[in-house]
């Protein structure tokens, strides 16, 4: 595909959780909780009206779904702020500092005064019905091979509640995630090549990870904005894997091209959408379709609409394996139905040719016309079919602007309309924060190293292998490494590999490695440094610390890992020589090998091999020459 000709434009939006001690507006910890909740709260949300009685498009659609929300909360881990039963506490300064650091790393202009806003979101993910967010900085940039990319905005906001599931029409959220500080980085929509997007995402990731941010699944979320000249801006949410980005772009461009082709064909056919909704339930009195008979037996209805001039287009593929019909169904599903049936796929799913003909007769369809069927409770079915009508009408005009969710195969499905811009107003419960220029200067004077820079530096400075250095940076152990190196005289590889590999193994074995703080690590390595234990004993000592066996030295004694003194080693070797004097006399220096093995076995790693070697060599030579 020739992206340039199509006028492809892309922008990136990254949401990164910060690893602060407390949440953005309350003192709760920023941790997800696996335990069963202590409370469940039932809440409803209503969109508030804006001027001219106009209600936000996205907000209005959510409210039409009349959803009830359940919020799971805890005695200790959550508080009344998350449950919207207490006003927010003042802005978390630690989060603000991290945001300012990142703003500086991205060459951005920091605002003089930070204002917290309320952004209306009534899908239940925020207990208040709005997300708190504020603009920290604007107008930054990063360099890429394909040119400079502008970083438009950096916002500090609170993360939403965690969606747990759905039960009897009620959506269940957990309050653990709500309020974790989140940074939103937005680029301008100027990127023209998928590779450039990947590069920007990578670089932004590097910048974010040089500060105190959360790691792991779900702690960073990336949204991609895509449009082509004739299409529309579409936001694809939840992009996880950078490598699928080019494929995703391709599929979205295909979808927009497909929709434009459908539009053109519809215009040519002079197509239209009939406004009437027909109750065709009686045509299905004896149907074999399980979906329909189940809906009708529960008192539901089968509703049909007429799409004049649409025949054959509903089955048109617009993304690999997804048809225009799938798009229409996406809109219907948002109203709570499980799906729809359309002309182009029938007869099928237990719906017979006779039934199809009877519908066509009932709706007075010509051979270019199509119908759509939805079977469910009357209210749900009506809402769903109205959505399909609305979407079908748009199909004759344009590609709709919408928010979509990424699917595993790099396709996407409809989520909701793009939010209109006008849904923010000020959070009156939080005072504004002046960002003092002195504080900003101090942050700028102490910017962290980016991960790649750090890796290159420690390789050069300490002679570490590429792999160890890489692991240290990735595991955020590089600073610990440098600290330990400043306190001991050990060789860097011993310390580096312990931090890079041993700790990882211990964690894999289920040990609590948070007990291995820098002080205890320095103590352990100092034992090696001073010759009290062998290098090989480090693993066992660290293991012992995780198991609460005491201080490194106590563990060394308990586990019998303390090195023998030179004179102890010498007297053990003397004993061995005496026992094996015949062999030495016979084999001369050839006795070195077997005696070395015997010595080491007897010393059980409590002596340095080099020392043993020296003693043996000297003593054998003495015997031979003596």
């Amino acid at each position, binding site marked *: 595909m020739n992206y340039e000709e199509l006028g492809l434009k892309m922008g990136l939006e990254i949401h990164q959780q910060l690893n602060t001690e407390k949440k953005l507006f309350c003192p709760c910890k920023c941790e997800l909780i696996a335990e069963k909740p202590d409370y469940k709260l039932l*809440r409803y949300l209503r969109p508030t009206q*804006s001027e001219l*009685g106009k209600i936000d498009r996205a907000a209005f659609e959510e409210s039409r779904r009349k959803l009830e929300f359940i919020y799971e909360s805890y005695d200790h881990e959550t508080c009344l702020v998350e449950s919207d039963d207490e006003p927010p506490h003042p802005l978390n300064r630690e989060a603000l500092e991290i945001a300012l650091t990142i703003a500086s790393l991205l060459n951005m202009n920091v*605002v003089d005064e930070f204002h917290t806003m309320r952004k209306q979101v009534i899908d239940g993910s925020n207990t208040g019905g*709005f997300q708190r967010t504020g603009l920290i900085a604007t107008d930054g940039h990063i360099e890429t091979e394909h040119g400079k990319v502008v970083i438009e*905005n950096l916002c500090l906001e609170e993360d939403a509640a965690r969606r747990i599931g759905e039960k009897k029409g009620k959506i269940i959220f957990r309050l653990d995630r709500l309020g974790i500080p989140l940074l939103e980085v937005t680029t301008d929509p100027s990127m023209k090549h998928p590779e450039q997007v990947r590069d920007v995402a990578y670089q932004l990731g590097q910048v974010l990870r040089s500060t105190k941010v959360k790691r792991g699944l779900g702690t960073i979320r990336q949204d991609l904005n895509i449009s082509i000249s004739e299409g529309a801006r579409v936001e694809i949410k939840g992009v996880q894997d950078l490598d699928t980005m080019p494929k995703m772009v391709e599929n979205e461009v295909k979808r927009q091209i497909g929709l434009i082709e459908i539009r053109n064909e519809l215009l040519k056919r002079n197509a239209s959408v009939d406004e009437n909704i027909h109750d065709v339930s009686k045509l299905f009195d004896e149907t074999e379709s399980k979906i329909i008979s189940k809906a009708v037996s529960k008192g539901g209805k089968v509703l049909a609409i007429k799409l004049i001039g649409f025949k054959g287009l509903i089955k048109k593929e617009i993304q690999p394996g997804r048809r225009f019909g799938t798009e229409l169904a996406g809109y219907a599903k948002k109203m709570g139905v499980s799906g729809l049936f359309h002309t182009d796929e029938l007869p099928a799913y237990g719906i017979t040719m006779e039934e199809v003909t009877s519908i066509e007769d009932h709706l007075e369809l010509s051979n270019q016309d199509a119908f759509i069927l939805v079977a469910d409770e009357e209210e749900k079915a009506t809402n769903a079919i109205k959505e399909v009508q609305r979407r079908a009408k748009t199909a004759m005009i344009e590609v709709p602007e919408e928010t979509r969710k990424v699917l595993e195969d790099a396709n996407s499905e409809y989520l909701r309309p793009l939010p209109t811009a*006008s849904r923010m107003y000020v959070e009156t419960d939080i005072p*504004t924060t002046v960002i003092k220029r002195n504080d900003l200067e101090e942050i700028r004077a102490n910017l962290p190293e980016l991960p790649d820079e750090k890796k290159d530096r420690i390789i050069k400075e300490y002679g570490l292998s590429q792999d160890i250095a890489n692991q240290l940076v990735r595991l955020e152990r590089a600073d610990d490494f440098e600290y330990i190196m400043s306190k001991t005289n050990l060789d860097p590889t011993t310390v580096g590999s312990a931090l890079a590999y041993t700790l990882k193994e211990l964690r894999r074995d289920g040990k609590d490695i948070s007990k291995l703080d820098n002080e205890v690590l320095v103590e352990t390595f100092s034992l090696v440094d001073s010759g009290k234990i062998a290098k090989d004993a480090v693993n066992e000592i660290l293991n012992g610390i995780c198991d609460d066996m005491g201080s490194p030295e106590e563990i060394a004694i308990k586990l019998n890992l303390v090195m023998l003194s030179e004179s102890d080693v010498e007297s053990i070797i003397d004993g061995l020589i005496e026992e094996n004097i015949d062999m030495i006399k016979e084999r001369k220096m050839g006795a070195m090998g077997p005696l070395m093995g015997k010595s080491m076995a007897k010393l059980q790693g409590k002596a340095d091999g080099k020392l043993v070697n020296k003693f043996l060599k000297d003593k054998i030579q003495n015997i031979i020459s003596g």
Partner: protein
Amino acid sequence: MVYKGLSAEFLDSSGLSIGDLIKVEKNGTSYFGILLDRAEDPDEKHIVIKLNSGYNIGIDVNNATAELVESGDKPKIELAPLNIEKDAEKPDISIVSTGGTVASVIDYKTGAVHPAFTAEDLIRANPELLEHANINGKAIFNILSEDMKPEYWVKTARSVADEINNGADGVVIAHGTDTMHYTSAALSFMLKTPVPVVVTGAQRSSDRPSSDAYMNLISSVVAAKSDIAEVSLCMHAEEDDSFCYLHRGTKVRKMHTTRRDTFRSINSLPLAKIQKSKLKLVDKAMVYNKRSTESLIIEDEIEEKVAFIKSYPGIQAELIDYHIDKGYKGMVLEGTGLGHCPEELIPSLERAADESIPVIMTSQCLYGLVNMNVYSTGRRILSAGVISGLDMLPETAFVKLAWALGQTDNIKEVEKIIHTNVAGELGEKSSEKFFLN
């Protein structure tokens, strides 16, 4: 405009006013946005603009330049009239607003929140109200709950009486929550009503989608249509948006600074539970005034010079003397435990009685009955002439004393009124069920 100091000068010299689209240049960055007013704060150097993205930011005017891009009008909200037709089948409910926002309109262009007061505003924000009744809305004043004064209780009582005289089948009063229980107690004493009078409010402002205003309002309208012709208070019963409780106006108190279920019946059960627009009595044995059994009587004389004093370790008698010297006509003492205060206060309490100033003893325990016969200090306080507030809430006793003194300055008469159950404020019997519910 609340701008002052440097920022006011800056705007003035740049010829800019609120609502204008402006461009601000600062250290090489330019910002485009609508100039907004500041919220009240001591700041003197930051101007606030709303960017296209919807975000507000503050810009320090030092080293900044600003120019007008397009002058803007002061935003005003114009909503089209609704043309609601009256439904003869439905009851007429009046909603009287005293302040606090029951409904709000947000102007997203500037982010301003405008309280809505007229009946139409209310209906626009809560169209479901029309399913229950013909709604007639009236804003009588717009004051914060903490600024309520006894004279406003009187105005409110008169407005409610007007609504009832004009044929309202029930009246809902929208009120800020801080002093809502004082007002509900005051109206309870001042009005004998043939129809329900329901006070309600919101703990979460109505400009947010999670506001409790909507459920409280709908439930109040349901209560106003009911058979319970008393002054009551209707608010969330739980942290959930599950149901509301209707509390007796004299037996209810705000118990939490922020929770939705802050109002609790004290020394009593709530009157009723309102769930999904259905009202159900909480206790079938509960006695209440039924609709149309009383005719409307308004007794709105109030003595405003009444003091409300809390006893505490180390309290000095001079505090009592001060109020006597200053000409206070009555005092409510919020005593400790069963109704006690330090012995040192007793001479001053005797002096109050001598000067015909009634002192009512209540308890800061809130729950339970005042009984000054159990300990010797209590007996001495009693013989000093202090009147027991029995199981009345201190706030209710305060309002009742102000009302009683509006009718008589005879201390014996006052005592008689205090010990007569006027509006369900006195309960003879304590039940297991009355504590912490």
